[in-house]
């Protein structure tokens, strides 16, 4: 069990939790993840560790409510316990020191950049975070990210904040030299975390420019320790387990078609479960 110490709604469907987890906080490295379960007979889902504080024995997780388990988790409050939490899992990305590192975070992927960018900045790398959302209200953790990066680039579809357009369009501009001078500069390395289509678009953007790029893959997973093999991903000629070999992989080698297809394996059943959950919600609201 892991006690929720505080909760913050970042958007209507994105919640940030600070959780008491001293062992995980002490062992965590940037980019690692935990697996949680929120009720008996509940499923196990992986969540990126957005931040951790070993001294306080706390970790931060950010949850976007997209399915049964994330909705149940999102409904928990300060003082509640998360039934099961295990980690830290996976490994931190291997990023050679030196050079300008650009982290691209789509949607709630921005949260995962937090400790990654702080770590890189502390190690002396010039860092830029590019985060994007539909509009200004959906951009998350901008102040927190600004504090840990050399530069923060905001992108919105409607132009309500920062650059009007996609994170990959802004990334392309930086690659093309738009950020020279006062700006963040041309990226030497790129790290992308977010929805699969965004990570794939980042991979395409950096491919021709030959910029080393890592993506954080989040396939379906059960145990998270290499036991089930459900999270297998084709990287180049090899099959890797995202839980133990990842979650970071060379973006230009990942078979995104396969990864997208495998992530949708249970889409119909997930929808069925979500509908059932919605009905239960209505029923309990009606009863109250």
């Amino acid at each position, binding site marked *: 069990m892991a006690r929720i110490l505080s909760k913050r709604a970042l958007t209507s469907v994105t919640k940030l939790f600070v959780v008491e987890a001293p062992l995980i906080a002490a062992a965590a490295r940037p980019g690692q993840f935990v697996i949680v379960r929120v009720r008996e007979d509940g499923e196990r889902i992986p969540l990126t560790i957005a931040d951790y504080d070993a001294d306080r024995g706390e970790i931060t997780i950010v949850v976007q409510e997209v399915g049964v388990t994330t909705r149940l988790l999102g409904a928990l409050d300060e003082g509640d316990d998360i039934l099961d939490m295990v980690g830290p899992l996976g490994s931190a990305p291997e990023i050679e020191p030196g050079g300008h590192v650009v982290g691209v975070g789509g949607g709630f992927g921005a949260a995962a950049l937090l400790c990654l960018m702080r770590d890189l900045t502390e190690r002396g790398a010039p860092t830029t975070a590019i985060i994007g959302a539909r509009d200004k209200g959906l951009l998350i953790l901008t102040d927190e990210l600004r504090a840990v990066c050399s530069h923060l680039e905001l992108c919105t579809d409607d132009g309500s904040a920062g650059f009007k357009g996609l994170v990959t369009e802004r990334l392309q501009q930086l690659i093309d030299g738009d950020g020279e001078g006062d700006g963040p500069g041309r990226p030497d390395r790129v790290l992308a975390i977010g929805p699969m289509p965004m990570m794939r678009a980042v991979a395409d953007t950096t491919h021709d420019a030959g910029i080393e790029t890592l993506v954080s893959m989040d396939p379906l997973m*059960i145990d998270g320790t290499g036991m*089930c*093999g459900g999270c297998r991903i084709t990287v180049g000629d090899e099959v890797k387990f995202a839980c133990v070999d990842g979650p970071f992989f060379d973006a230009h080698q990942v078979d995104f078609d396969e990864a997208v297809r495998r992530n949708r394996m249970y889409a119909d059943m997930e929808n069925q479960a979500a509908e059932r959950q919605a009905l239960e919600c209505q029923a309990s609201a009606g009863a109250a």
Partner: protein
Amino acid sequence: MPVKRIDKTPMRQRDAGVRAHDFLEVNEGYDLSRAMFEAERCLRCQDAVCVDGCPVRIPIPEFIHAIAAGDMAEAASILRGANPLPAICGRVCPQETQCEELCHMNNRFSAAAIGHLERFVADWERDQPANDGARKPWRDEKIAVIGSGPAGLVCAGQLVDMGYPVTVYEALHAPGGVLRYGIPEFRLPNAILDWEIDVLRQRGVEIVTNVIVGKTIALDDLLNDMGFAAAFIGTGAGLPRFLGIPGENLNGVFSANEFLTRINLMRAYDFPVADTPMKVGKRVAVIGAGNTAMDTVRSSMRMGAEKGLIVYRRSETEMTARIEEYHHAIEEGVEFHWLTNPIEVLGNDEGWVTGLKCQVMELGEPDESGRARPVPVAGSEFVIEVDNVVLSIGTTPNPLLLQSTPGLETDRWGCLVADQEFGRTTRPRIYAGGDVVTGAATVILAAGAGKSAAQSIHRDLSAANEAGAGQMTIKATAPPSA
């Protein structure tokens, strides 16, 4: 003396047509009269060779005599002294190749049903009132056990009985290891596993779930900072092998580990009441012919498959599954494709499995395993139409802990090096046993290794104490009489 039957008293089983569609236990166990009748079949040999066939050396004639005398409490106490998991071993041990194979009755008739009797006594014990509270350990040296599978649980059970405070660390959210995620409920109900684990807890074993030693805590932190005097590694062989054939990442292809974990640990058969989904099509091909393969193919039918198929590149003779499981699978309608080697998984445009391309094999000269080597027959390729392919071709030890702990030696198969007799690894204070040392084997071999390691931990700590302060020796000799 009552008449001895020449044949083993049969245990009732649920009808194959019914049981093949639910997860309730197949075997129904003995009742008291059958158990006492069967107990009389034991010859009470002077040289009880059956005990030599038992990896945990249960005093078999003694516990069977207690049954025959109607003293179930005595039988239970004898069993438990030797084996902390009797209800489990009575169900899943391959007795026919162990104790019962050596039984002198087996020379002319059929062996005494040692396994059935073990199960009977353990189930009798389960119906008795629970024990009074946890016992206090009377020794100072804390022992860490890593992994709550059969090796770890037996090691922990033996150590608390010797008075050590024991903490078992489990990576998953529920204890039991392969007994929980691997063996299906129709062979080993979760209620039985829960009960055995509760008994261990009552006897003082502390179990901590959701901790991955090697990730959450380093093994050296347990030994250096958290005050554990010794550690036992029983992390099993949890890493699934894949064949590396084309199409293996199609939707609908699983490792047996994933397939069984979704069902057993996550209870996918109860979806959407349980949250974890599982997709089982009409025809399921399971590759391999070990016990896990039988568990998988029989589970697939219970999940709604119309046809469960075993696809195996060798023949029936080389099959490694227990004969009982094989027979149960046949009774339940499983189809066996011997000498059939899968070479490609075929899929449709959406990336879902549609078939398994195979080639016919014939048996050649013996290979390094001593079994006849299967050789492909040229031009014999054919396709079996299936909706799922499940790979049950073996597992290897999980390297997470081994790689994160300096000084632990592994062999070329990735198994942890430890001497079989004492469970000592290449590092002092670290012991190991079970599948992590031997590669995937049986529950009872793991249990045996857990037991020997517990004894050598006790011996080594006692020796160290005797070499050290005298007062420690006094403390380590006997439980307090209070």
